């Protein structure tokens, strides 16, 4: 992906223009940046104790003094909690999503490009890893290492690279027989050149869209981890964990424990997917207009 697209400013500008023309993509960008600012900058202005519980003020409704969004079952300020959780979710989501996508894209591109036995081998590795249930891996790893934010990034990335690997491999299989990829040989270029300059950029649309799904998936993944009791150690939390905890109160009228984290997840999923759609369009030179 280090082709001229990144180097040539004109190209970048064109892409940016196409991107900015896409109203949904801009909306996605606004949402994501908004959530990033909310999570990372918000706590500077809205300071709350997100470390210590306070059993004396649990489940206060929104609008209680000092708690515009109320408090949760442990007495944390819900608004501050959303910010703290957002940091974790965004780091894990973006980190794992991108890492997984990069690994997967490379793997898939190489497998598809070489084809034949190498493809079979690499795809069977994917099959094998897909077949080891993720929850099982998490459980084993939780028993050996204590989960931290960064170990979860790596862990989720290791689980999630399989899907982009498959998708990119499909693209790669069809791209490698294109004449413009074969022409690389004619120019004396090696395989790595073909993969990095033509196959990967050619599959960029798939990669970007799947990356946006991967980011969303990683964030939702954290919810499942919490649900299964494999989440992060308190007081660290994430939107998924908050939602999981909040779901316990689905029969109570504590809507502020469910809707805000739920909304945050919906927004981040929508945001990244809109950006992904927009990026795909702006990477595709044929769709660009001068």
């Amino acid at each position, binding site marked *: 992906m280090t082709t001229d697209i990144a180097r040539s400013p004109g190209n970048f500008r064109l892409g940016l223009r196409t991107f900015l023309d896409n109203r949904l993509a801009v909306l996605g960008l606004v949402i994501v940046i908004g959530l990033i600012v909310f999570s990372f900058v918000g706590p500077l202005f809205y300071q709350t104790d997100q*470390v*210590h*519980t*306070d*059993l*004396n003020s*649990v489940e206060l409704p929104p609008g209680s003094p000092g708690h515009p969004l109320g408090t949760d*079952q*442990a*007495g944390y300020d819900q608004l501050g909690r959303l910010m703290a959780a957002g940091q974790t979710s965004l780091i894990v989501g973006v980190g794992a999503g991108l890492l997984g996508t990069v690994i997967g894209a490379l793997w898939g591109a190489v497998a598809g490009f070489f084809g034949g036995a190498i493809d079979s081998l690499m795809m069977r590795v994917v099959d094998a890893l897909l077949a080891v249930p993720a929850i099982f891996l998490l*459980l084993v790893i*939780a*028993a050996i290492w*204590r989960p931290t934010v960064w170990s979860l990034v790596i862990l989720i990335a290791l689980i999630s690279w399989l899907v982009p690997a498959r998708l990119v491999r499909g693209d790669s299989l069809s791209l490698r027989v294109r004449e413009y990829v074969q022409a690389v040989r004619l120019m004396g270029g090696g395989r790595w050149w073909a993969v990095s300059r033509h196959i990967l950029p050619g599959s960029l649309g798939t990669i970007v869209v799947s990356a946006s799904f991967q980011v969303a998936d990683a964030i939702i993944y954290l919810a499942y981890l919490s649900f299964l*009791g*494999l*989440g992060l*150690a*308190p*007081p660290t939390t994430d939107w998924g964990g908050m939602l999981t*905890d909040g779901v*316990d*109160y689905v*029969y*109570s009228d504590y809507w502020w424990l469910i809707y805000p984290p739920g909304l945050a997840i919906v927004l981040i999923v929508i945001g990244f997917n809109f950006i992904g759609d927009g990026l795909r369009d702006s990477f595709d030179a044929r769709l660009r207009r001068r």
Partner: protein
Amino acid sequence: AQGDDIDRDVIRFAEFPGVVPNWILPITDPGHNGSPNTMQFSFLMWRPLFWRGNGAEPTLDERLALAEEPAYADDKRSVTVKLHDYNWSDGKPITSRDVEFWINLIKHNPTRWSGYVKGNIPDNIDTFEAVDDKTFKLTLTEPVSADWFTGNQLSLIVPLPHHAWGNGDDDRTEAGAKAVLDRLMEESKKPAEYATNPLWKTVSGPWTLSKYTTDGHITFVPNNAYTGPAKPTVKRFEQVPFTTEDAAFNALVAGDIDVGPLPFKNLNQRERLEKDGYTFVPWRNWTVNYLALNYNNPETGPLVRQTYIRQAMQSLIDQPLIIDKVFNGQGAQQYGPIPLEPANPYATVKNAPFPYDENKAVTLLRDNGWDVKPGGQTTCKSPGTGPGQCGEGIEAGTPLAFEAIVTSNRRPVLLEMQSQQSVFQQKAGIAFQVQPTPFAQIITEAFAPCTREKPDGCPWQTAVWGGGSNVQPYPTGEQLFHSTGSSNAGHYSDPKADELIEASITGGPEELKAFEEYLAQQVPVLWVPNPSYQLSMVRNGLQGADGQNPYSGVTPELWNWKK
């Protein structure tokens, strides 16, 4: 949604979520010893000599016993038991040979029985003597207190149908006994045949099995030849499996079950269910709940070996607040080795020796040479073993810090410990890192063999696996707190405690009280609130189901629909 369309021929009872009874032989092998297998399943068909639990009380229920009250000799070294005139379902009488059959099987296969504790039954039975068909006499190796022996030992005996299960007098030889038990256990490993295998048709209890599926759909029908005191009044007793307590709750809402659990988190749905025709009955179990401390951990062992540190930490646990906020009022305070609830004649320590008192905690630590920094990190200022010093094995600058492995399977427990983490840190500068960990892993770690000399087996520092530990009917605590106790996870070892425990086994109420008071004072583990075992909803009109057995047993023969 309900009302008159209730089927009064049947009682439907929710099994404990995620647990399906799967061992029919009343001799449970290790791993199949949970109360769902015994108290809720095989004991419905084969009654123990003495029934643990009397209504909601943890004492024995003489109504359901198979024998009259045992007669102990004055030297407390022998006991004579006279069986009631009850019959097996095939009409044959229940005799002392059936009791001997059980003892023989256990005696020759002690480790294959989950209830076996070295030195206890059957090791402490010197001789068995059948006085007549209905009377037998046990001579013991040591003197015992009657309450202890009846409550904790005789209640384990389950007379088995020797005429149906035995093979002549084979069980009297070691090889024969092994062969017989082998065969029985082999049959018990075929759950798919539980309802059909003729072996399991000879029962002493009020029920026989009519349907059993391996996924937990179980139907009992009355044993028509039952000669015991309370005969079933319904045509069927059905046990219904649930994957989660949410699923069971949904079934309650749909009116599909007669007795089932209300999840803690849905406590505010109580009124809704009450409107639907259910009664709220919290189910209290005879357990103690605590935060286990590892005395052999190389890092924190020296800390928890200091009584004043344990006492200081105990002073920082605000049990009423936790019960109120975390368990929504559904739990009992607890300050010693004998639970205060369910109501019982044993507990004497009714007032907390260490009620919540942050000043006391700080003072205790300061007085013992700690530099206490509430909100920060408390460290040892003056090391040494003298008065006013931190204590043995604690160097200057040692932080007062622990890691707690806490069950991740129960959210309220996790929240409880999470709040404790804050309190410890904020009030006394004690670091207490909560690490959510799956239950299986905690007990694997916490019960791993580990000694102070070879501490590599015990990396854990403190642990909460949730649900606490069961207490014996006569609550002497030798398994939990004696230095050789089989369930003494943290390897607590105090010569005085050992002495008091041993005395309580042979002695009377006085000795029991001394033991209880000493341990309450010593805080061998940090006592934490004891939440209810289950918040049951019982359908209105189902009488007798409200006295829920503190050993989690069920006695549907005592339940009946109001006409």
